């Protein structure tokens, strides 16, 4: 393991790769700050730019973008009460009140220190958990993989907010449907291509991700008449206040960071749960364990209330890499896009990655950690300036986002049909968003569609067409039982919720 870490460090610490982390953090922070544009869009926007790079450098840039985007999301939550992503909603509960009190600098510093600590502690857990799981995963068969993918897909939906479970499940199915477009790999038959050569290879993952996230989010911004620039100008006009924390304040948040890191990592490893659930759970847990006096500060600018979701959010992001790297199964929309990026560099995540390409495996982990460090020492002092970039007026910002999204996909295929297809998907995504359908389950379904079909085909062929493989192999059975339990969670929540609400649930 130590050899692996050393080789990962040697790769990541070259001057070029350090520059990549810095550029990634900076670009990610800026994109992540734009309300609506989160890590998924930030990573998707960066994929075409990194095609010409060496895989390790590209991955290092991605790690920087990922952490930068999460931190950027926290920044917009704190400064303008407009979370870039769902994972930073809980950050705004206490971050925004702090900024309103003229302590935006302090709030941003706490967010950065908490994110750094959460990421660091989780990276240590990852160092231990990922190789262990990778070794176990080597014994997995097609039926286990199929069951795991079903678990991942249902978990994303089951953890959706109340009343949204069926919508998330439906979007997962739509994503799976889109993944069937193109040539069927086993029989060589064309499916849903309507005779078009452009569709023979299927729909590009990047095209779908850009259209349904970057393009549709930018267009939704216009449709809903949101003006990010004005809010950002207002937030930065009066200055940020000091970035320094007193030793008493540090002492106050240290236990919170410890608790939330462990919770965040565990939640992150679970397929489908991810950063949003982790941040809300950590916020709730922190409030529950606080004294009555401190509880009253929550929602009004509590330092613990800010540190808890920020720590858990980052720890969960690191945790979500465990299933991705060891099983090749993304547990969230963001890791699904990361999987797409990894595949485009010719890196196939899964249990064999650890044994066959240890340098890549470890450089991903090490670069994630480097991203955290760069974010802390370079990005934090730059935040006031990056926030000013946000005040670029909407008439200029939106067409540029549209241009970079379109050209990003075009530069990969050099096919103008892809631009037209993107427009169609972007319009469809806007309509679906207006109807309240979530996009992340769709992208997850799309990316898992092909491997899921492949594993189902193999499992069914081995079992002679019988679905008995679902219960004959103990491991498959355990995973399927877990799937059923996960699917039952919303039902149980639905039964329990009215009582909890009656008891006065808040936040």
């Amino acid at each position: 393991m130590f050899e692996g870490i050393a080789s990962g460090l040697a790769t990541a610490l070259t001057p070029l790769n350090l520059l990549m982390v810095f550029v990634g953090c900076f670009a990610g922070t800026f994109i992540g700050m734009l309300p609506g544009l989160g890590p998924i869009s930030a990573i998707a926007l960066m994929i075409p730019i990194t095609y010409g790079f060496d895989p390790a450098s590209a991955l290092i840039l991605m790690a920087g973008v990922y952490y930068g985007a999460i931190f950027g999301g926290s920044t917009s939550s704190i400064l303008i009460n407009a979370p870039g992503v769902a994972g930073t909603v809980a950050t705004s509960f206490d971050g925004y009140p702090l900024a309103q009190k003229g302590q935006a600098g302090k709030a941003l510093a706490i967010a950065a220190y908490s994110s750094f600590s959460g990421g660091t502690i989780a990276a240590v857990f990852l160092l231990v958990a990922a190789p262990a799981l990778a070794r176990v995963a080597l014994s997995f068969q097609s039926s286990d993989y199929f069951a795991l993918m079903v678990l991942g897909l249902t978990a994303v939906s089951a953890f959706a907010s109340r009343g949204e479970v069926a919508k998330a499940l439906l979007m997962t199915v739509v994503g799976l449907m889109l993944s069937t477009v193109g040539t069927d790999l086993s029989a060589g038959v064309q499916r849903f291509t309507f005779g078009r050569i452009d569709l023979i290879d299927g729909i590009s993952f990047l095209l779908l991700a850009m259209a349904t996230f970057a393009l549709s989010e930018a267009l939704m911004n216009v449709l809903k008449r949101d003006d990010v620039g004005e809010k950002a100008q207002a937030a930065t006009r009066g200055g940020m206040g000091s970035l320094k924390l007193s030793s008493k304040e540090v002492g106050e948040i240290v236990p919170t960071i410890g608790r939330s890191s462990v919770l965040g990592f565990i939640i992150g490893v679970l397929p489908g749960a991810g950063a949003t659930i982790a941040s809300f759970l950590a916020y709730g847990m922190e409030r529950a364990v606080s004294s009555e006096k401190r509880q009253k500060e929550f929602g009004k600018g509590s330092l613990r209330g800010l540190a808890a979701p920020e720590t858990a959010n980052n720890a969960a992001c690191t945790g979500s890499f465990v299933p991705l790297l060891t099983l090749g199964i993304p547990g969230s929309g963001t890791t699904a896009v990361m999987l797409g990026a990894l595949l485009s560099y010719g890196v196939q995540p899964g249990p064999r990655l650890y044994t066959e390409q240890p340098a890549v495996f470890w450089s991903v982990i090490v670069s994630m950690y480097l991203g955290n460090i760069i974010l802390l020492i370079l990005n934090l002092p730059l935040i006031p300036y990056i926030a000013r970039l946000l005040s670029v007026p909407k008439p200029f910002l939106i067409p540029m986002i549209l241009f970079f999204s379109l050209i990003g996909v075009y530069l990969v295929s050099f096919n103008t049909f892809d631009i037209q297809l993107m427009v169609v998907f972007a319009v469809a995504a806007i309509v679906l968003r207006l109807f309240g359908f979530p996009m992340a389950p769709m992208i997850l379904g799309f990316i898992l569609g092909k491997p899921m079909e492949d594993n189902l085909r193999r499992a069914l062929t081995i079992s002679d067409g019988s679905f008995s493989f679902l219960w004959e192999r103990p491991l498959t059975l355990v995973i399927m039982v877990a799937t059923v339990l996960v699917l039952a969670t919303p039902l149980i929540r639905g039964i329990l919720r009215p009582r909890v609400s009656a008891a006065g649930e808040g936040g």
Partner: protein
Amino acid sequence: MRRDTLGPLLVLVFCFGYGAFALQIGMFPGQENEAFTPRTLPLGLTALGILFSLILIVQSLRADDGPTVGEMVRGLDWGRTAALVVLMALYGLLISPLGFLLATILFLIAGFFVLGERRPMVLLLAAIPLVVAFWALMTRILGIYLEPGRLPELFGV
């Protein structure tokens, strides 16, 4: 009609369309007797899609609350959004004949204009340097080919 009824209804129509095309997926002779064919997953997904759409429709009809479609579309900036969508489609059509540089400059200027910028100098200064810098980065530094366009051919160059 409620928003939560019409949305799943539209997806239901999509699922029926998908299912209809799934039935037309070609198969080799004898393949229909195999355990898994190219139609298996699409047909399974059709069934699941119809099931979840119907659950959502029934849920919304039973609840009978939430915003109506009229409330959903009211107050939104449809004009500008539609103009940007048309611009993107036109950009896709014009990038080959006009070339990357000209098509992108026109796309950005039109985009800035649609979103409210009217000063001609600002429009030009915001679009041209950005596009030229991007073009130089791609073609001169990264060595990526970008469409030169067919305009020079038309003028006999």
